[in-house]
């Protein structure tokens, strides 16, 4: 079963997205902030990370950079999730090492397609 690390600080978004993904048969683990995401990535070794960009403690960009810099976690694909529907943010996410980019509100079919691509 594909294991997804969902990094999201908003309770509702976390709840909704995780339930929908679990329904599709994914195993979900959570992190609430950037630092937790880095720690979880190491301890849980998920298949895919869904990373919100606006996070407390360490933002998603920084967290992604560190995950990608660590050799033990660098191979885990990261899909960025953000409410900023702007191109510069997309580029920023790419530069930080994100493999894909999904704009909020999340379109489930589109997100599933991207997840499938990596699993």
């Amino acid at each position, binding site marked *: 079963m594909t294991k997804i690390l969902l990094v999201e600080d*908003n309770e*509702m*978004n976390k709840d*909704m*997205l995780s*339930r*929908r993904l679990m*329904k599709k048969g994914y195993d979900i683990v959570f992190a609430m902030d950037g630092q937790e995401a880095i720690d979880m990535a190491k301890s849980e070794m998920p298949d895919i990370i869904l990373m919100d960009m606006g996070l407390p403690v360490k933002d998603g960009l920084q967290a992604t950079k560190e995950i990608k810099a660590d050799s033990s976690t660098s191979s885990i694909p990261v899909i960025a999730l953000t*409410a*900023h*529907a702007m*191109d*510069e943010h997309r580029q920023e996410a790419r530069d930080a090492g994100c493999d894909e980019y999904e704009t*909020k*509100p*999340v379109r*489930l079919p589109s997100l599933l397609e991207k997840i499938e691509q990596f699993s």
Partner: protein
Amino acid sequence: MISFSTSFKRLMIFSLGFVILLNMLHTVKAADSTTESNAANIDLLWMLMCAILVFMMQAGFMCLESGIIRNKNNINVALKNVSDFGISIVCFWAIGYGVMFGVSKSSFMGSNDFFFDPSGTATSGQAMTFFIFQSMFCATAASIISGAVAERLKFNSYLIITAIVGTILYPVVGHWAWANSDDMFGGDGSTGWLYNAGFIDFAGSTIVHSTGGWIGLAIILIIGPRTGRFVEGKIRKFAPSNLPLSVLGVLLLGFGWHGFNGGSNLVLDEAVPGILLNTFLAAAAGIVACLIFWGVQNATAPAGDLINGLLAGLVAVTASANLVTPLGAVFIGAGGGIVALFATRLLEKWELDDPVGAIPVHLAGGIFGTLILPFFAAEEYLTGNSNLNNYTDNPRIDQFIAQLIGIISVGLYTFSVSYILLKTVNRYNPLRVSQEAEDIGLNIAEHDSSSDQIDLLKIMQYQNDTGDLSVRGPEDLFTEAGQIGYHYNILMNSLEESDKIMRRQKDDLKVAMEKAQTANKAKSDFLANMSHELRTPLNAIIGYSEMLIEEAEDDGLDTYSEDLSKINSSGEHLLTLINDILDLSKIEAGKMDLHIEEFDLASLLKQIEATAKPLVDKNKNKFVIKCKTEKLKLKNDQTKLRQILFNMLSNAAKFTKKGTITLQIKPEKNDNLRFDVIDTGIGMSEEQMGKVFEEFTQAESSTSKDYGGTGLGLPISKKMTEMMGGKMEVNTKEGKGTTFSVIIPLVVKEEK
């Protein structure tokens, strides 16, 4: 009309009367008088009259020059004219006359008769008469120069130049040609070397006129042209201050010239009428030649050419007025006029600035008249010229050589001496006025001259420079400038009043604009923040409703799924609205940037087709893409272009049912690419069409109820298109369909 012979007789009678009067006053002498002495007195009278006529030429030069140059320098030129008369006469009296007519040293210059005073000698009257006549010639040579150097030569520089002319320039060449033993006034038996070489210059085409011209040329080479006359190869003409005054000057010169040539005969004999006839015939021919020259080109002769034509005709005939037939005088005068005309063009081409044309008239005209003399003079006169060297057995050629020697030697001497002397003076005391003085004009700069006209101009200039509207010009209802000043002041009063109002309004406007800008920025910031904040709860609404729809379907609770779909689509609608507002506020706040990248048209079309097809299909429409240039590579903002095209397609899909929607792509001129979205939908009226690009407006407010939409899509697309350097167009026919077009500039390259 009075015939010339009649007026000649009258002149004789008048002269005789004058002489009788003189004799009555000098009763002692009258007792001894004989017929012979009467004749001698008539010659004296004639010479004195001619001297006075030549004096009149000073007035002619003054009018000609001050009228043809600009207003701001006219007083300066007039004062130069009157001063040069004074200085040249005094210099000629003290030194020049002795140099010219004193006992010759090696035929180069005279050596006595300085501080001229013949009183007590037997021929003192004759000598004095001769002196008066000759000093007028010297003044004439000096006056010629002032025209060539007008408008930029310092007043005191001019005085120095005049002194040099009156002492060593004019008298030396005068000595060369005119010192001889034949004349009845003061001849001392010694002769000048040009006279000895057979050179003939009757009244001074070369000696007086070319001398003035050569010196003028030397000075303008030193001081350069007037500012603005030649700029980047373009010749600028300045407005003459008073052209009729110049024409009066020319006529006065012509009047005085009769004395210049007539008096050069030195006696009143049978030759005088012929000389005068030739003189005014040449003047007339000079004018006629210019009129014909311009007439054959179907153009009106410029004033300068006419003036110079007449004068050059006079200058040219001056060398030979006593030797040629009337027909010869006509040819010489006409030739002089044409020569001056071409010389004027030549000076302009060489960027030599001669404001009044003194060099074309006096130098070129003088050379022409002197050189042409051998070919028009009666042959017996030339064979009778005992001084002439026999070079070729042809007296005309021999005379021509003598003339050439005269022209070259006079030119070399006067030009080089004046050039070297004045170049040296220029080093220590610049001959030219300062740029500032040239700008404000020499009337004010050099003479502190003032008139109500100048005062008014000063006031205007001051206002122009400072923007100070509070000062007023001089008013005087009895002068022209004063009247202009009076009305100018009235104008300034109302201008000052409206300026005050305007300033007040400008301040008000500035405050209002600042307020509006602040408010607009606040609005844009608010919209940007609000829409961002709204998205988070919206995400939840859309996400949860979608999830519920899925769950309801899975659990077979169809009764809920319809209502849930309404919640979901309302959320979607709200999201679109928020996205649009966000875009619009970004554009207005100037926060939207272009992201230029290179991309394929083909891949863009593929994406468009995939995203737009479901929308188009919804209303059972056919979707056609027409493109013959898929291989094009574009360099522009791909994301924005995609957003614009998607917006246009979704609009078309919304307003078309069971029709066709076509996306057509065509290259346009100037490396532009045109995207047409053509639908066969409901179309729009003209009134509706005018509103489609207004924000928050749909073609009709009821439309939004039937078709949905925020009314922001098209205004945003239009603004984005403009950001990309393109334009949007719309064509529509109610009931038939609509075509929206986007034309964007691209660096289009055909893929290899």
